[in-house]
């Protein structure tokens, strides 16, 4: 798990094939992730602000399908 303090930008991405719509990511990280009408995540584009990284990492760890990832740009 990447916990080193990186200064390079990161994005949150969801693997749509692995995702089965559990929805925990949206519960734990509503600032960045919403759910569509069928319970699947809608993730914001763009660089993740440093202050939100902690929440993002928690959501990534919680995903039962290992579908949520933090990616360096």
């Amino acid at each position: 798990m990447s916990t080193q303090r990186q200064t390079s930008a990161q994005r949150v991405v969801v693997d749509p094939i692995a995702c089965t719509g559990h929805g925990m990511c949206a519960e734990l990280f509503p600032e960045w992730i919403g759910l569509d009408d069928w319970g699947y995540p809608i993730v914001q584009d763009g660089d993740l602000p440093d202050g939100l990284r902690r929440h993002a990492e928690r959501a990534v760890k919680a995903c039962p399908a290992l579908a949520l990832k933090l990616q360096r740009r």
Partner: protein
Amino acid sequence: MSYRLLAGLPAPTAISLAEHIELHGDVPLPSRTDRSAYIAEVERAGLRGRGGAGFPTSVKLAAVAERRRPMVVVNGVESEPMSSKDRVLLELVPHLVLDGAIVAARISGSRDCVIAAPAVTHPGLRRAIAERRELRKGHLQLKLAATAPGYVAGEETALLSHLEGRGPLPRLTPPRPAERGLRGRPTLVQNVETLAQLALIARHGADWFRSEGSGSRPGTTLVTISGAVQRPGVYEVPTGIPLPLLLSHAGGQSEPTRALLVGGYFGAWVDGTGEGLTLDDDSLRTAGAAGGAGIVVALGQSSCPVAETARLAAWLAVQSARQCGPCVHGLQALADLLIRVASGRAVTGDRQRLDRWTAMIRGRGACAHPDGATRMIASAARVFDRELADHARQGPCSSCQGIPILSTPSTRTAMAA
């Protein structure tokens, strides 16, 4: 305009090797040192994929050429039901396709090539392959493979998955096939027509290629024209041709045209005969469409656009590979909505729902299937606004039960593992 790809046609049987050489000359065989020169020439020619995505061919070639143990996959799947151009090439001008495969293999440094084509084309292809000395010499191992049924089977990663025996399931990219493709090897996946064009560029050069056509995709292109036209068929036209002129190539409309479906089932509807629009990305984008694979279907006045769209949307929903939630649920929801509207059982808020859902599922699948389907549906909502409102209020119209124009073959859906 003189025919290039379709030179020598129409003909009752496939163009023979002798005829092929007479029409086009010998195929050039680039050596290793020629590679970058050829890639530069292809870049200058501006050749873009003719399979629908329109990706610059030179970029793909360059990406694969720099890697170890690359291979070529010829994509002859042609899963668009209203398209026949690849079939025409494979059956009637197989040597041009083989030329393209050989040239692409040499430029990219590939020793292996797989031609994925409908089984019915295999006997003819085998005969053509047997005639080619270059292939018998063993520099290039060429294999024929059958294609999988289903609409997404022609998507390049789905094709690779099928060739690996895992069923036609699209994969998430990156990594792209040029990086990791068939069984992990760098793979150049190219549409049949793109390779045929490549074969001609290799002979005649970029300037010759650009002498026809215009806009962002120069050269000629094959278009399958069907629907309410006098002479449906496959035509070779310069890119950038005005859409109404395209129809006159096919003998003109057989009845007044209500709309055109441009770019296949993941293209878009345009009003009437596409007055003011040309077969070019930039022009079509203004109407919410894209060039896509060269397919144009003319919907006549005697057909019902709402019934056609609803039926098509339902079919596209079933054709989903069923790997991604937004596609599986979203396309079904849209199809159900359109069927509701078509039969007069619309619910309040359906129009808003349609707009909301088409925007909601776009870009959220592993492949472009939901993007294409929503593009088609959104364009139908624009172009058939009046008919949709009429159906919502009054139910089916007299044309609803007419002969279907858009082919929606039942195929065994690709079931996700």
